[in-house]
C-alpha cells in the first residue's frame, strides 16, 4: 500500500532542493517512517503492559485453574499443578443454560442503554449549543461534576433515591398522586430493577456524549446552514442533509464506545443489589466475575471473558467495519 498521505502534497517551496520531484533519501526515510514513529510509543506502552495479561487470559481459559493452581504457580511446593483441559471450560459455558439467558439479557440491556444514552446525550448536545453563555457554562460544569463523581458515591445516592423504605422517589411519586409507592420495592420485578440500573448508567454516561456532540456540532459550517435556510429548507431537512453526515463519524465512534462500555456494566448492578445480585440481575460481566472470584474458578472465568470479547467483537463488527472505512476515507 503506497504511503499516499505523505506524498500527496509536494509543495514547490524554494526550500526544496531541485531533484526532479524526488526527495533526498534521508528525507524520504523520515517521511516514510514518520507515521511509524508516531504510533510507536502507544504500541510500546500497550504491549508492555497488556501483552502478558492478555496472553495469560487466553491460556487460562484452556486450563482447570482454581485457587490451588493459583498458589502452585508461584510456589511449586504448594497447591496443585495446572491441568490443561482444552475446550472443557468453553464447553461448560455453552452447555450452561444460564449462560445463554445472561447473554441475551446483556444484549438487550446494551441496546436499551446505548439507545437511551445516545438519544438523550445528542439532544443535550444540541441543546448546549443553543444556550446563553451562563447557562451553558453552568450546565457544562454540572455535567463534568456528574461524570467526575466516584462510582461508589453516585450509585449509593441512586440506591437511596430508590430505596424501598426511605427513598425519595417513592415519596415523591406518592405525593404527586401517581399511586401509592410507599414501601414499593423496585427490585422485585427485574424490569423495574433494570429501570433503576438504566437510570444510573444513562445519567453517568450522558455527560460524555453531550459534551462530545456539542464539540462536534460546532464544526458544522455556518454558511451552509444559512444558505440552505435561505433556500427554504426545513429544520429536519437541514439536519438530515447537512448536520447528520458531518456528525456521523463522531456518532459512530461514540456509539461504538458506548456499546463496549455498556456491554460490560458491572459495578452499578453489583452495588445496587448490595454486593449480592440475584441471578436474574446477572449480566455477562457479573456472571464472569462471580465465576472467577467468588467461586475462585479462574479458568472458567477466563473462558467467559474471552467469550464476552468475542461476542462484543461480533456484535460490533458492523461498527468496526464502519470505523475502519471512515478511517480510510479521510
Amino acid at each position, binding site marked *: *500500500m503506497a*504511503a*499516499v498521505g505523505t506524498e500527496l*502534497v509536494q*509543495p514547490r517551496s524554494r526550500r526544496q532542493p531541485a531533484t526532479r520531484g524526488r526527495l533526498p533519501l534521508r528525507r524520504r526515510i523520515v517521511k516514510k517512517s*514518520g*507515521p511509524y514513529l*508516531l*504510533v510507536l510509543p*502507544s*504500541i510500546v506502552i500497550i504491549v508492555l*503492559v*497488556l501483552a*502478558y*495479561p492478555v496472553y*495469560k*487470559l487466553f491460556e487460562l481459559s484452556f486450563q482447570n485453574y482454581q485457587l490451588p493452581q493459583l498458589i502452585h504457580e508461584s510456589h511449586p511446593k504448594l497447591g496443585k499443578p495446572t491441568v490443561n483441559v482444552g475446550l472443557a471450560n468453553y464447553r461448560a459455558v455453552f452447555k450452561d443454560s444460564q449462560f445463554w439467558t445472561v447473554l441475551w439479557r446483556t444484549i438487550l440491556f446494551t441496546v436499551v442503554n446505548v439507545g437511551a444514552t445516545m438519544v438523550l446525550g445528542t439532544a443535550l448536545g444540541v*441543546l448546549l*449549543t*443553543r*444556550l*446563553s453563555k451562563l447557562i451553558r*457554562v*453552568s*450546565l457544562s*460544569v*454540572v455535567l*463534568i*461534576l*456528574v461524570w*467526575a*463523581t*466516584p462510582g461508589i*458515591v453516585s450509585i*449509593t*445516592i*441512586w440506591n437511596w433515591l430508590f*430505596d424501598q423504605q426511605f427513598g425519595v422517589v417513592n415519596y415523591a411519586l406518592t405525593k404527586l398522586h401517581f399511586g401509592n409507592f410507599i414501601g414499593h420495592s423496585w427490585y422485585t420485578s427485574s424490569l423495574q430493577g433494570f429501570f433503576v440500573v438504566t437510570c444510573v448508567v444513562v445519567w453517568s454516561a450522558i455527560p460524555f456524549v453531550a*459534551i462530545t456532540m456539542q464539540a462536534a456540532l*460546532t*464544526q458544522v*459550517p*455556518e454558511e451552509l446552514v444559512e444558505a*440552505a*435556510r435561505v433556500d427554504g429548507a426545513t429544520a429536519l431537512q437541514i*439536519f438530515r442533509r*447537512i*448536520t447528520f453526515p458531518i456528525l456521523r*463519524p463522531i456518532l459512530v*465512534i461514540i456509539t461504538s*464506545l458506548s456499546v*463496549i462500555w455498556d456491554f*460490560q456494566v458491572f459495578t452499578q448492578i453489583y452495588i445496587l443489589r448490595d454486593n449480592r445480585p440475584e441471578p436474574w440481575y446477572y449480566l455477562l*460481566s457479573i456472571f464472569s466475575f462471580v465465576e472467577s472470584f467468588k467461586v475462585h474458578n479462574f479458568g472458567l*472465568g477466563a473462558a467467559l471473558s474471552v467469550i*464476552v*470479547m468475542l461476542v462484543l467483537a461480533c456484535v460490533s463488527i458492523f461498527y468496526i467495519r464502519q470505523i*475502519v472505512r471512515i*478511517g480510510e476515507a*479521510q
Partner: protein
Amino acid sequence: MTAVSVGRARAHKPVSAGGVNGRFSKGIANIIGLVVLIVMLFPIYWAVSTSFKRGVDMTRVTPEWFPVPGTLQHYFDAWHKAFFLSSLRNSAIIVGSTVVIAIIVAFFAAVAIARTNFRGRRAYIVIIILIQMIPQTALIIPLFVMLSRVHQQNQLSGVVFTYLALVLPFSVWTLRGFVANIPKDLEEAAMIDGCSRVGAFMRVTFPLVAPGLVATAIFAFIQAWNEFTFAYVIIQDNSKETATVWLASFSTQQQIDWGGMMAGATMLSIPLVILFLLVQKHFATGLTAGAVKG
C-alpha cells in the same frame, strides 16, 4: 458534498450550530437547559446535602430536602481520617502523570492514523478497538503478577503504567476523531503559502485540535481518577493508596459512615471542579469559537 471554501481559521460565535430549527427561541432553550441542569444535578445535590445532615436525618421516611439542622461533624471526620491528604496527593500524581503522558502519546498516534496512510494502519485501528473489549477484571491477577516480577507492585509508577494501557486506546480513538474532522486543505493551503509540513500543522491544525485535546484529557482524567480495583490491588501500602480507595475505607464490616464518605467525596471533588473551571475557558472558547470556516 460540502462546498469547501478555503480560508484561514477565524473565531466567531455560531448562532445556531448544526442548523437545527432557527426559529427555536433562546428563551425556551434556556428554560429547558435549566430543567435539565436541575435533574442532572439532583443526585449530586443529594450527596452533598447528606454530608451536612445529622445521622438520624439521612435515611428518613419523609425525606429531608435541606440539611437543616445540619452538622459539620462529617467534614471534621473526613478531614481527620487517616490518609486523606496523602491519598489526594497520590491520586494527583498518578492521574496527572497518566493524563500528561497519555495525551501526548495518543496525540501522536491519532495524527498518524488520521493524517497518514501507512501499512498496518488498519490492523492498528482494529487492535485499538479490540483492546477496549477486554473485560478488565479478567486481567487483574496476571497483571499484578507481572508487575510484581518487575518490582512495580506497590509503586505509583506501576499504577501509572496500568492506567496508561487502559486509557490510551480510548484516547487515541477520540483524538483521531477530532484530528480527522479538520480538513487537510487548511494545512495544504498553509503549505502553499510557504510553511513546512510541520509548521503548517503547528500553526493551523494544532490550535483547532486544542479543544479536542482538552476534552480528551478531561475524559482520561476522570476515568483514571475514579478507578478502584486496579489501584486497590496494585498498591499495598495505605500511605500510597489513591483517593478512590480512601473513600472505600469509610465502610467497615459493621457500618458505613455515609456522612463521612459523602463529605470526603465532596472535598475530593473540589480540586477537580477548580481544575475544570480553569481549563473550561479554553474548552468553551475553543468550542464556541467554532473555528472551521467552510
